[in-house]
């Protein structure tokens, strides 16, 4: 080992290893290496979400004569399920997932395919979920997590960088899944897959010039989708409205959403209007508030302080995620952690960005916070993956 200490991240992991080598085996037991920060941050976000969902929905539920906490309670139940799922994911050594990657992939393709058949159900113009009695399962949310595992498995290589064959397999697998999602169609989720793929290729060591070519192809693909009527009219309008808000005459359409969200957040000011006291929220001026626009509740009622608090909580999750990737015992673990970080970062940025007017409106939920069982549970499964990689970094 050289005297040069390299980067900060090198130092962190080396310190860990040097310490570990001198410790007894019992010290290496996974349960001793839980990362409480990431769990607490995720749990905090989820609870904030439940509170925000309550604030956003109690007035209209009361109006309809329903229990005011209906949606908040459902979210709380999903949170319980998510935590349970997280524990289950944690219990199994993550290296076994690498072995099962093919099966995971198969299950994903199957479920995403079946949702397109009459087995699936449609909301907001996308055939994207299964109705199982009172349960609603949105396979694409789980597929995001699954895809991270699959891609990590494909890109894990002892060579310095994955060869063209692995790259081809990674692209092919993603394309297959994306194709299915495009058929729903769910443009937002598709974007998440593309972003996760790109980040994992980057971290996985794929040659930069290939990444450049891929970025180019992706750009052409976006333009092509515009030209070739793959996008639905409303999706195109949303994007054009984002680029040119005045084109959306009358303010009743997509800029209405964007505008009301901006007003809600801006009017929160520094300290917010107080929990349950947001006028934009109570009077239901923000459409889709409990799902995609949940951040507006935080912005309006808790103000800049609350919004920054939420960003800091996400920052904590992401920071721990990057750290876990750096100290992971093998590239597969590192790639899984990087994938999870990419997924959370992309979704949080695009979601918050669209509510504050720096990103176009796409149907991407805010992880942990937005209402929706599948999204919440899948997010905790992803946290489970992070924990898993972290806990087992000293195992032989």
């Amino acid at each position, binding site marked *: 080992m050289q005297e040069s200490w390299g*980067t900060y991240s090198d130092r962190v992991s080396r310190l860990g290893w040097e310490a570990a080598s001198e410790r007894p085996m019992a010290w290496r037991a996974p349960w001793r290496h839980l990362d409480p920060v990431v769990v607490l941050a995720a749990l905090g976000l989820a609870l904030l979400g439940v509170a925000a969902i309550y604030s956003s929905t109690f007035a209209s539920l009361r109006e309809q004569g329903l229990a005011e906490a209906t949606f908040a309670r459902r979210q709380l139940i999903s949170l319980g399920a998510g935590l349970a799922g997280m524990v289950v994911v944690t219990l199994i050594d993550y290296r076994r997932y690498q072995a099962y990657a093919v099966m995971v992939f198969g299950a994903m393709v199957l479920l995403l395919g079946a949702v397109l058949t009459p087995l699936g159900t449609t909301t907001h113009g996308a055939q994207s979920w299964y109705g199982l009695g009172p349960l609603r399962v949105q396979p694409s949310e789980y597929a995001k997590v699954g895809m991270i595992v699959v891609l990590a498995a494909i890109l894990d290589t002892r060579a310095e960088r994955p060869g063209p064959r692995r790259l081809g397999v990674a692209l092919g697998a993603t394309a297959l899944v994306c194709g299915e999602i495009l058929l729903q169609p769910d443009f937002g989720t598709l974007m998440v897959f593309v972003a996760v793929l790109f980040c994992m290729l980057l971290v996985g*060591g794929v040659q930069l010039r290939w990444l450049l070519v891929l970025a180019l192809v992706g750009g052409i693909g976006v333009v092509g989708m515009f030209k070739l009527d793959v996008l639905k009219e409303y999706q195109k309008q949303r994007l054009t409205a984002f680029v040119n808000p005045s084109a959306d005459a009358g303010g009743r359409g997509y800029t209405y959403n964007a505008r009301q969200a901006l*007003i809600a957040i801006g009017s929160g000011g*520094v300290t917010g209007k107080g929990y349950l006291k947001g006028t*934009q929220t109570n009077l239901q001026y923000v459409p889709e508030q409990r799902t995609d626009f949940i951040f507006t509740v935080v912005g309006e009622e808790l103000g800049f302080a609350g919004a920054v608090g939420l960003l800091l909580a996400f920052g904590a999750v992401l920071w721990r995620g990057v750290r876990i990737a750096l100290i992971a015992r093998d590239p597969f673990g590192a790639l899984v952690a990087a994938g999870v970080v990419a997924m959370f970062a992309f979704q949080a940025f695009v979601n918050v960005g669209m509510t504050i007017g*720096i990103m176009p409106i796409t149907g991407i939920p805010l992880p942990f916070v937005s209402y929706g069982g599948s999204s919440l549970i899948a997010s905790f499964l992803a946290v489970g993956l992070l924990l898993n990689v972290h806990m087992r970094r000293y195992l032989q």
Partner: protein
Amino acid sequence: MHQLDGPRRIRLSVFSVLVFALFLALFSRLWYLQVLAGERYGHLAEGNRLRRVVVDAPRGRILDRDGKVLVRDRAAWAVTVKPSELGDQRAAVLGRLARLLDLPRGELEERLRDYTGSPLRGIPVAEDVPRQILFYLTEHAESFPGVAPEVLTLREYPSGPVAAHVLGYVGEVSGADLKSGRFRGLKEGDLVGKAGVELSYDRQLRGRPGVRDLEVNAKGDVVRTLNSTEPVPGNDLRLTLDLGVQRTVEQSLAAGMKAARTLPDTQRGGTYPARASAAVVLDPNDGSVIAMASLPQYDPRKFVGGISRRDFAVYSNDPGKPLIARAVQSVYPPGSTWKPFTAAAALRAGMITPGSRYTCPGSYRLGNYVKRDWKASGHGSVGLVDSLRESCDVYYYNIGANFGAVERAEQDRGEKIVEQMQATARSFGFDRAPGLDLPFVAGGTVPDRAWRRQFWEDNRKEYCAGESALYKELCRYGWRWQGGDNLNIAIGQGDLQVSPLQLASAYGALANGGTVYAPRVGKEVTAPARGRRLRTVQPKVSSVVRLPPGDLTAIGDGLRAVPSAGTAVSAFQGFPLDRFPVAGKTGTADLPPKAPFAWFASYAPVGNPRYVVVVMVEEGGHGGESAAPVARTVYEKLFGLPTTGPKTGSDRSG
């Protein structure tokens, strides 16, 4: 056992920095939105949440002296269009709306184009729309963007278009009005009186709008009312006008003009044009106006809900100028109706007594000028009574010349020149705007030396630029008061100008012994609900003429002889003058090259005068033939006599 290798670690770090940068972008954007622009968005959120509904206050009614309703408010369901909200669907929406309202598309476009009111309000395109159409519009609101049913309060004229110039009309307050501070506390688009008593009593009639602050949710449902003030309706205004008399006056004026148009104009050929006329009926005992009309007049109903550009252009370009209230806004030479005031000046100066006589030949010579009497053969030797009865011009030329001589003598002695004819005229209320409770009241002119000089100074440039001999003369000597000026004033000609209302109020003073009342059309202001009297408009004395009673009686005797044996005898043929003695004076004012303006000024019944009636027909010929018959019809109405309808008289006096 190996961790991520070096290059991939670097990539992961690069990736982390990228994520950090993205979050920094979110943070700075939030800083801008919530910390820097928070207040602005706070206002926007309030604007979302709060709806201020202004509830218009009903405007007060206007009643005649007996309480008959002349003007009132009514609520009408209208369909309004905001063109700015139509956007690119304009053609489609208007097409749909035209089919729904069963109106031609062109008419809809025209109403939008013609609208002259505030851009903040929707433009009414149809009033009194049936209920089911309104329901349809509400239910299909999404296919009619910018179109809305709205309740409008509209002025309504249950007695028809009568007394338009007195009533005036209502319109949206103009930007200039708002700036002038005349309408404090109003905002653009509010309705105010624009003319007539609607303007002069605007503050009493207007009332105060109510305001309701509502909290509404995104669907537009009202969640709760935050605070509200009820509208305060405007007060009612009772006028001194008598609707019946007013109607008669307007009808007789119209008939009189029509009749005058059949009379041959011997001097200019053809018949008299008689395009316009005015009349005033007032009570000489308190100055209250019983009727006042100016023809042609406008239809106040055209102003309801905002006059269209087209209608307004029609009125503005009409040579008859229907928007002008001639009775109070226009001034004319009074012609021979002026003679009583010349006589009063002479009596007051001791220049004549009622018994003084002048020989009245067919003309009068003053220096190089020859002034002709209207009757070429002359009237022989006449006293005061006969001079009025026969309207002898020469009698008054003599008085004018005598005043001229007195003034010249004063000037020669270097004393202050006392212009006694003018002073007496002013004491009768001429040469100043009468204190009438209507806007835009003209004051007229009683010319004197100071006026002449001022007028000359104002016009000197023009005179001196002119080439003609007359202009050259005027340029040098135009400031000079000349002997002819006194003669002109004496017979009510020249630069002398009075409004019909001024003449009526001065005849009121002749009738009542010398008190000039400020005329008024308002009687009282009452609360809208129970009619409690809030304010009574008191009679106001404007000036008192000091003249011995005997002198006034002498003038009255002369005026009384005019309908029975003088220049108005044919107009009053068959009128029961024994029961209802009328004292009056005809007048024929020359304004060449126009046809003469016909005047008749009068009061009745002599002894206990209750009415003053003044009639003027522009270019209507002689007072006795065109104006006096109209006055006769009005008296028939006032005294409850069977109406004969105005014919023309045959008297062609001056």
